[in-house]
């Protein structure tokens, strides 16, 4: 059985380097013999993680900085889109802005009267929005550390927040099940969606901000028309697993969900079909975040309740690296997407090619809860 996954590996890992079209035809070709798992043992979950992959394309992330300072559980970490800053937020009411290149604290953003659950950067890395248990969202000008706007209107804990790609709107989810869409320029609520019956744990705009995906502790993933506020579709996770984080893929064709049955799934929301399942990590209790890493190899990166960070190959679903990161649950991870500047975006034929011609440092940040309280920055040494 060792030989079979090897086959998948070589097929899958050609794709980031070779011509994408070529690899796609290979993948779609029905003549390619599919690996046949010979025994039942293979089907047991979690599958034996083939961590010993020795491919040239595997990431080799190494711990570079450990930053401590938060006094309560960290709830989110996010790299600024230009890759120069890292923000973390915590139950201690603070947003901390770090330099991921030096590991130093740059400043604290203080003002919230209760703990924080989520943060989001504007596309130009100028503003940061923070969602707090004090029922407000604050928009900060990161350079000055001052609050630019306070968005009031939620009646309870604000649990999640995200910008649209042009950053003139925010979407936020509240623990009373409401989703609000905000106009950033005026600081006014444009729409309130009575979306769910329980904690809204994640909300995310698609690329052109025409759709919003949300998930909640009621176990449902819903897709909304952001202009009319109408519900377009509901995806119910199988196995009655509670979904606690959801987001669109970079091209907005798929959604990635993490659920409390120790699984991360990639969905085609048009057909409601689950395309990929990533397993091997621990996740049954906390809202653990997963994200896409598309600069360099294409990985799915997720925190885990065993204190580690897991990375899977997007196509083959094999674990490509495990970071022994923290001593407590890793609830938050972020990938420095070091996005290609927005103005060049549509001319890009292939993001992978772009990152090959302009090599860059790929970074991961991870953060943990109560007994650990550190933010750690990892740098991929395979690309340097």
């Amino acid at each position, binding site marked *: 059985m060792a030989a079979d996954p090897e086959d998948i590996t070589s097929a899958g890992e050609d794709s980031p380097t070779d011509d994408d079209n070529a690899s796609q035809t290979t993948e*779609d070709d029905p003549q390619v013999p599919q690996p046949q798992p010979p025994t039942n043992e293979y089907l047991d979950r979690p599958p034996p993680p083939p961590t010993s992959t020795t491919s040239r394309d595997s990431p080799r992330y190494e711990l570079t900085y450990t930053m401590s300072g938060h006094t309560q559980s960290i709830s989110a970490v996010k790299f600024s889109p230009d890759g120069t800053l890292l923000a973390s937020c915590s139950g201690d009411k603070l947003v901390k802005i770090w330099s991921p290149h030096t590991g130093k604290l740059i400043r604290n953003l203080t003002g919230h009267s209760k703990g924080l659950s989520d943060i989001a950067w504007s596309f130009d890395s100028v503003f940061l929005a923070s969602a707090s248990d004090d029922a407000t969202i604050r928009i900060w000008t990161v350079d000055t550390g001052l609050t630019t706007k306070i968005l009031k209107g939620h009646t309870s804990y604000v649990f999640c927040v995200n910008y649209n790609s042009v950053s003139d709107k925010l979407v936020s989810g509240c623990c009373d099940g409401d989703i609000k869409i905000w106009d950033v320029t005026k600081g006014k609520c444009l729409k309130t969606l009575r979306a769910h019956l329980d904690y809204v744990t994640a909300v995310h705009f698609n690329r052109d901000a025409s759709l919003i995906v949300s998930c909640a502790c009621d176990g449902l993933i819903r897709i909304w028309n952001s202009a009319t506020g109408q*519900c377009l579709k*509901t995806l119910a996770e199988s196995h009655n697993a509670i979904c606690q984080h959801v987001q669109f893929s970079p091209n907005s064709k798929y959604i990635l969900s993490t659920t409390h049955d120790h699984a991360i799934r990639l969905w085609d929301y048009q057909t409601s079909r689950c395309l990929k399942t990533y397993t091997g990590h621990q996740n049954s209790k906390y809202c653990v975040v997963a994200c896409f890493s598309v600069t360099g190899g294409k990985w799915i990166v997720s925190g885990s309740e065993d204190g580690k960070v897991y990375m899977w190959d997007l196509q083959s679903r094999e674990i490509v690296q495990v970071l022994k990161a923290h001593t407590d649950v890793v609830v938050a991870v972020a990938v420095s997407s070091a996005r290609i500047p927005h103005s060049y975006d549509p001319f890009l034929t292939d993001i992978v090619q772009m990152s090959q011609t302009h090599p860059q440092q790929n970074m991961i940040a991870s953060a943990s809860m109560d007994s650990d309280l550190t933010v750690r920055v990892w740098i991929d040494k395979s690309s340097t």
Partner: protein
Amino acid sequence: MIHTDPLTMQYPTAVQTSLSANAIFARFDPSGRFIATAQHQGSALIWDMDSKNAIRWLEGHVKPLTSMDWSRNSKYLLTTSKDWNAIVWDIETAAEVDPCQRKRTVRFDAPVVSGSFHPKNCKILLILLSTGEAFIVDLRKGHAGRFELYDQHEGDDQRPAAFTVVHFDPIGRYVFVGTSNGSILVFHSRTKTLLARHKVTGAGIMRGFAFTKGGRRLTTNSSDRVLRLFYLPTYPSPPASSTTPSQPSTPNPQIVNQIQPESQVLEQEFEPVHRFHDPITKTAWHTMSYSPDGDWLAGGAADPANHKIYIWDIQHNGQFTTTLDGGREPLVHVDWHPSKPMIASTTSQGTVLVWHYPTPERWGAFAGGFEEVDENVVYEECEDEFDIEDENELERRKKIEEEQFVDIDTLDDLLISSSTGGTNGEVDEDTAWALDEPDDDLPGWTLKVVIEVTPEY
């Protein structure tokens, strides 16, 4: 079904909202995110269609605006005014300074009636003056100049008819000119030569043109209160580039005669495919606008007491479909949204009504795997619906299914946005001319968000 099905594309039916813009007309930008409104006193406003807030002020003209045209990626706006000026505004850099910065001001010696960008290059403008003269104003260094378009033939024996409408076709290869004696002249944009002359019987003075996106259909508005729809012929290939007039002045008549013998000008009577008019009230039309797919045509009636938009179904023989009634304030302008069943109609009082197609709430969407049906249907069990299958077998199949390649980061709209080239990939001479010294109106630029500062923090 998440995206709007193009087959079910509708026309708007109800007013969604109104903007108190004090506007004389309003134009959607090509992305549909914004709408520009022209004010009486000469300024223009840009509104965000989601929040319905005015987000940019363009202060530059001192007399009423006469036209506005967006560049293809909405970075620039061209405004023309009765103050003899045409201004090109840069919306992107405008954010730093409020009110907006102008990129270029072009001054003429008469009030400007209309101005539009070349569809492929914002450095080429098409300008019509109230004197009935039309110019292609080329702002590029290598081509700089004002080129007057005129009809050589008619100049010989009589005073030429004044130009009353000018319009680029959607790819910018031709300039269509409407005249005061009911003719349509077709000029070649690159060489500025006359290619065709179409007489439209009974039209009177040409008042307006509207093209479908593909450029095959042209609708005209004229003083006889009839909208006419024409299918355009293909025009003869333009003269070779060696004879391109390169002087930044009006072309020398001798050169024109050499490259353009009178026999080469296509003389053709134009017979409309459809005529749209109101047989009872015989109302005149202010403007007309096509739906994005070209299947519907909206006409704004110049009714002094009512606000009425007529909708015709082009797909079905141009039959009259409905009238949208917007109340008592008379209509002065209509504009159809670039991608949605949405119309902006301006009233004589300056209000912009935004019409939309209200979609009924689909409650079935709230339940996973739930389908709504219009009528009861007898449920038919599928052959294998309650079969007990081996779970291992199912998981094995799922595993194989998951081997499928998934592309998470290639963007579809790349294909669409790269349409600056020729229609089928090849770059012809006209496109090459238009793309020489290209503008910087690139897709994907982002409007800087200006957060209103509230003093309390």
